[in-house]
């Protein structure tokens, strides 16, 4: 076939994993076609959250000169534990965070992803948008040799395909890298709103000195009705990203509607004043794979590798994912470059990709927290019980009752025992430590 479309590599997806892969391969001299189904890279994304720059520096050392569309550096971060009417806040603010380029920025991915994709295009990758890859093309040996798309004459060929399709892992399944769709127990649903607010007002409310300061808060307890999950509140340049994430299974089991959970959270007496007068600009929901280390797909097959959300590369505990995706996309690209050098696209050769990730923080962290989801699952009251406990204890500690402090301390202790026995607490902590240690 003289006029069939052939490239050195095909990347499916215009998110951080796909773009990092396309960028590194294009810089390495391969002809790369990157296919994205949205109107532009990032169009299918509602992410408004914290972005860690170390991964970006790894693939784009001069990223700062290229003016990435960051919202605000994260100069203050921490946790709020909510009971129904109170919040115990542990926040960390430091001059160390103020040096730019900072280690973490709030980012709206609908703005960030097009910028990142443009860097790959500048490096020589060909980005095709508004085009959906419908299936993988395989040869007689079962090697992946290309993809078909939803366009006329839509077949395109390459000896290597990097799947970075995101959480809806249709191609990963088709490649035989994972057996089935993710069960609701291992997928979180995050429902999120972007609220706009004039920067001056935003800065006054959150105690920020100017546009080069920002806050990232993770919120537990009553935000998710005490169920396993987290809520978040991040300051953007001229607005707030606010949302709630819980395992899909929790929504199903407790018959909760995601938008009700978010509305309830926004209406919490501690949260509401921060949002007043803001204008809702974007509302959406997105799935997050939280399958954990033990249920990840195989990362490579004959002629194919998978990276990012499609591979379950998420560290839910530290709200990391985008950086894992970038590192994984880069590692897959480096393996693709080596495969081209050797002329070997077999699963055996491509397994190098997994070995590289095992050596990096990506799979080390995932391995360490492999039991986290199961821990929360087996300790369903964990978040709610302790968030309420801490708030009740704080209330007694900070209130002058005209009673001796000794009785106040006893009251707190008995409060603890009412809610959870000492052995129960010890057991929870032991389990938590085990889950954290991996």
């Amino acid at each position, binding site marked *: 076939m003289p006029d069939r479309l052939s490239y050195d590599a095909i990347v499916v997806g215009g998110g951080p994993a796909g773009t990092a892969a396309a960028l590194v391969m294009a810089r390495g001299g391969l002809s790369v*076609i990157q296919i994205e189904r949205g109107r532009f890279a990032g169009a299918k994304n509602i992410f408004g959250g914290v972005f860690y720059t170390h991964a970006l520096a790894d693939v784009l050392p001069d990223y700062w000169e290229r003016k990435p569309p960051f919202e605000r550096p994260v100069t203050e971060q921490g946790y709020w534990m909510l009971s129904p009417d109170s919040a115990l806040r542990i926040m960390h603010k430091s001059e160390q965070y103020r040096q730019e380029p900072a280690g973490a920025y709030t980012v709206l991915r609908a703005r960030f992803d097009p910028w990142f994709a443009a860097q790959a295009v500048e490096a020589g990758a060909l980005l095709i948008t*508004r*085009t959906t890859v419908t299936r993988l093309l395989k040869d007689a040996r079962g090697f992946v040799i290309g993809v078909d798309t939803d366009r006329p004459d839509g077949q395109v060929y390459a000896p290597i395909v990097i799947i970075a399709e995101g959480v809806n892992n249709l191609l990963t399944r088709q490649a035989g890298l994972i057996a089935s769709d993710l069960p609701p127990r291992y997928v979180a649903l995050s429902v999120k709103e972007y609220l706009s607010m004039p920067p001056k007002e935003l800065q006054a409310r959150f105690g920020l000195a100017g546009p080069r300061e920002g806050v990232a808060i993770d919120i537990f307890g009553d935000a998710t009705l005490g169920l396993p999950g987290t809520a978040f509140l991040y300051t953007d340049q001229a607005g707030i990203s606010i949302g709630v994430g819980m395992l899909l299974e929790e929504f199903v089991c407790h018959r909760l509607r995601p938008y009700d959970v978010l509305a309830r959270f926004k209406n919490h007496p501690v949260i509401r004043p921060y949002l007043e007068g803001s204008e809702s600009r974007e509302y959406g929901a997105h799935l997050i794979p939280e399958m954990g280390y033990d249920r990840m797909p195989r990362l490579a097959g004959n002629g194919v590798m998978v990276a990012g959300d499609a591979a379950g590369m998420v560290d839910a505990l530290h709200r990391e994912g985008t950086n894992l995706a970038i590192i994984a996309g880069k590692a897959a690209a480096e393996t693709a470059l080596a495969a081209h050098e050797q002329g070997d696209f077999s699963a055996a050769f491509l397994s190098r990709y997994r070995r590289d990730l095992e050596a990096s923080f990506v799979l080390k962290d995932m391995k360490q927290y492999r039991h986290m989801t199961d821990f929360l699952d087996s300790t369903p009251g964990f978040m709610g019980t302790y968030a309420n406990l801490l708030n009740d204890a704080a209330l007694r500690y900070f209130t002058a009752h005209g009673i001796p402090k000794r009785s106040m301390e006893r009251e707190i202790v008995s409060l603890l025992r009412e809610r959870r026995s000492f052995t129960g607490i010890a057991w929870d902590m032991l389990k938590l430590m085990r889950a954290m240690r991996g």
Partner: protein
Amino acid sequence: MHAIVAIKQVPDTSNVRIDPETGTLIREGVPAIINPYDIHAVEAAVQLKEQFGGRVTVITMGPPKAAEALIECIEQGADRAILLTDRKFGGADTLATSYVLAHAIEALNAEWPADIILFGKQAIDGDTAQVGPGVAVRLQIPLITYAIAIESFDPVARTAVVHRRIEQGVEVLQTRLPVLLTVEKEIAPVRRAPLPRMITAARYQPEVWTAETPVAFDPRQIGLKGSPTVVGKAYTPAPRAGGAIVTVADCGVEAAVARALEVMGILDTVRSSVAASAGVEVA
């Protein structure tokens, strides 16, 4: 066969909101799209090319960002795209815009005379529907507005039969070529672009024409200077108050008319004379 299509990049007005204080469009964060009628004009031109061979040239006047819309036309099958962009073109009304487009088309005609020139029936941001007709007048060629079908097209005999929508139905017109059409969406359904076209377009760079080169435009006829239109005031009309319903069966036609005139505050004399002739007492 040479077809020239003039297009415009517009804000996606289905997403646009009006600032309640200033009464102007809030364009911030609103995605820019190709004017929805224009892409059908491109498709009609591409179908003529498929039938008769030749070339489809697309032109637009706008900011550098308008190149995106031209690239979408290349995806749909256009061969060549020209972006007329220059600060000096800025602030143009329909008069200045039609001058620039007509002058550019004349330059293109010198290379390869166009058999047909296509526009969308109107742009969804301004809704004037004036630029296409303005260009036809300047080029002194036949104009057919609201075209919905090209029944026949003969580049050798230099005639075409075109259907156009009118209020009472459809008008079927025979015209000589070259002709300028402004088209409705029915002129040609837009097909999904094949992948090889997407790849061609992703690598395509539109030609950029400025106010001086490669064609010199008359500086007095372009941009703000060439635009006599003045926008006196833009405002959102106040919502109308609800009307009153008068049931004719209850009070008869004359009384109903009288009530209607009363509600509308029509002249007293009319009201009293109607009332008098109808024998209705006016409260």
